[in-house]
């Protein structure tokens, strides 16, 4: 038996050594170490074949290619696609060049992003929000008009906000690989390229709803959940049902006693492991339809779960203090984010604090 086992490769990422199987990418190896070392991924999605390499958020520097050939790689490489070699040394957060490139990527992604987080349903579980919080700046150097698109209606279940799209192609791969026929793709090119159906056509098949889950931003959102609530006020609960078309394993998002949203279950990297059908997602929203398994126990590192939105992290400005003085707090159990249940280790705060809070002038 021992002979058939592949030899493990040792790769060092940010000074932490980890042993992985051959063929593993740098990103997967880093994820094995933990969320503090894992590079951000905006377009890479493990369950989707061929995804990755597009957003360039996961760029890392390879300081030594392998034990045999310890030369560094000349350019930053996309960690989601680069396979590890034995003895490879990777610099992720420890390399200023990588951080600089990543700051640049955030800036580029936000150039044409409308920044309408306050009205966006994705806020709170948005990859771009997390990424921008870690690497972005509070100000912009961009003065020109942002690109806009003509609105497209793609059916009764899915809302397309093309302005928010970062063109990660995840939904295109989903449409290709999960659903029966490819119904939408990318049209146009450059910063005018857009996700859409070629002829104005509703997306209609059993698994189309999964594009909502794979979307890293709020470009594809659930129409049945639209403007219903904020993510952090809702309580995720694992549940399942006997579904003839899919696995039926879902996460129900409760507000009080009411199921207001159904999504597929995601792992700690925000990746869906088992895709669900539209009937489960959009049409089964009664508690009685489901067999409840208990609260969702996956700890995802997002802006909210890391408590980066905590009010006391920031010294309130005069305007905020005035507003606080005039504001009468209403006691509501929903004020507490349910995502905060799983606290992250305190080192994480220490790391993000100095850069996240800028002193007031």
């Amino acid at each position, binding site marked *: 038996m021992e002979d058939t086992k592949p030899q493990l490769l040792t790769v060092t990422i940010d000074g932490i050594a980890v042993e992985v199987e051959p063929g593993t990418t740098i990103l997967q190896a880093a994820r094995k170490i933990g969320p503090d070392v894992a590079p951000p991924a905006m377009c890479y999605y493990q369950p989707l074949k061929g995804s*990755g*390499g*597009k*957003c*360039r*958020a996961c*760029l890392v520097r390879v300081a030594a290619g392998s034990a045999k050939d310890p030369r560094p790689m000349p*350019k*930053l490489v*996309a960690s989601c*696609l680069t396979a590890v070699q034995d003895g490879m040394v990777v610099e992720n957060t420890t390399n200023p060049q990588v951080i*600089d*490139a990543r700051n*640049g*990527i955030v*800036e*580029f*992604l936000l*150039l*044409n992003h409308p920044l309408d987080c306050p009205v966006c349903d994705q806020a709170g579980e948005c990859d771009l929000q997390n990424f921008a919080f870690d690497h972005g700046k509070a100000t912009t*150097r*961009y*003065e*020109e008009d942002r*690109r806009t698109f003509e609105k497209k209606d793609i059916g009764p279940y899915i809302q397309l906000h093309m302005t928010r799209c*970062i*063109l990660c*192609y995840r939904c295109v791969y989903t449409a290709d690989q999960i659903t029966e026929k490819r119904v939408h*793709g*990318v049209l*146009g*090119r*450059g*910063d*005018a*390229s857009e996700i859409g159906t070629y002829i104005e056509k509703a997306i209609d098949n059993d698994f189309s709803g999964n594009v909502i889950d794979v979307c890293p931003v709020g470009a594809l959102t659930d129409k049945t959940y639209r403007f219903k609530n904020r993510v952090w006020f809702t309580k995720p609960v694992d549940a399942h049902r006997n579904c003839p078309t899919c696995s039926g394993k879902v996460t129900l998002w409760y507000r009080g006693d009411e199921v207001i949203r159904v999504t597929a279950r995601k792992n700690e990297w925000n990746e869906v492991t088992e895709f669900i059908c539209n009937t489960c997602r959009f049409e089964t929203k009664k508690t009685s339809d489901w067999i409840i398994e208990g609260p969702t126990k996956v700890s995802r590192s997002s802006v909210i779960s890391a408590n980066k939105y905590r009010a006391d992290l920031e010294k309130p400005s005069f305007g905020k203090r005035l507003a606080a003085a005039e504001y009468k707090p209403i006691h509501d159990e929903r004020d507490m984010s349910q995502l905060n249940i799983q606290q992250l280790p305190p080192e994480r705060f220490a790391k993000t604090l100095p850069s996240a809070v800028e002193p007031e002038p």
Partner: protein
Amino acid sequence: MTKKILTEHINVPGIDTFDVYRQQGGYTAVEKALKTMTPDEIVEEVKKAGVRGRGGAGFPMGMKWSYLAKPEGVPRYLVCNADESEPGTFKDHYLMKHIPHLLIEGMIVSSFALGANKSFIYVRGELMYVIRILEKAIAEAKAKGFLGKNILGSGYDLELVVQPGGGAYICGEETALLESLEGKRGNPRNKPPFPAVKGLYQCPTVVNNVESIATTSWIINNGGDAYAAIGVGRSTGTKLISASGHMRKPGVYEIELGLPVEDFIYADEWCGGIRPGHKFKALVAGGSSVPILPANLALTLANGEKRLMSYESLSDGGFATGTMLGSGGFILFDETSCIVRNTWNFSRFYHHESCGQCSPCREGTGWMEKVLHRIEHGHGHQHDIDLLVDVSKKIEGNTICPLGDAAAWPVASAIRHFRDEFQWHIDHPTEATQPGAVYRGEMALV
């Protein structure tokens, strides 16, 4: 007269027909290769010739051929990249239009060397008439038994397909070209795997420029060593240069690599000098994507020696004082040209042609274009120049394909060498936006 390899017979009337081309010694390379040589011997000759890729990157062609994976039972492909769309480059167009059989002969020899039984010529969609010329030439060659089944009784089969592209610049990038050829959206692929391992339809593929393939027939006829004797150092052979801009005689010229830039510009045999009454201001030596150089640096190296038309000499001094030979799009500017406007124009092109796949290029090219547009039209801010440099740095090297670099280099180099001109545009917006207004401050005119 310098040695001419590709354009030797280009002025012979009727050279685009099979019979005339054959009379001028055409298709002898096919006969020689198929009857007397093995594929490995041809690869060896091309390696000896040291011919470097003429599409822009300058990667040794023989090396590229030898990297081709040869697994059993999997077809191999040769694709000719005739999607020439770099602003300032028009040599392949010229070659295919006038002497199509040269390319076809090269394709037969190269396909035989690589063991490809189906080869493609991917021509950009705008050149429909060139596609017709090529198709006519292929039909002629087929009728004479130089294409199709059992060529010249050697048992080797080759089918040659001319495929029009949709007219996107990005489809000149080899992996985007392959995607486009497969009928998909022309997005560059992530590398590795390289096309030599997984290319067209996931089979080993070699993608070569028109000019590179066209040289192979001469190499077969005369030997790799004879080819290597032409040129200078590692830049062997001849190169087609598409000369355009403010010169007396723009056009396509075949030069021996190693010719001094000064001779090329001023000698009557080639460009014939700057147009009368004007002075030489700047030079883009290898198509719009390579760094622009001011006149003094274009003619001499940083150490005062003459700059030569070769891969090494043009890139001498890195990007601080050098540029690249690229695809040979030689654009010359006199003192009436505004570098800011020109940079904006190049930038506009890259913004329009970015495929939109990876974020730095998709967003960055548009941003640079907008900032340059603003400066050119008198709305620039003091911090805009530094902003442009910063944006170009954040694009460069962080993208999937070299289009990001190609968009960043002209902007970065224009600011590196002509910063005063940008500053003048920002400081004197009213003056700078007058029709025909050009910076007349201190600069090195020749």
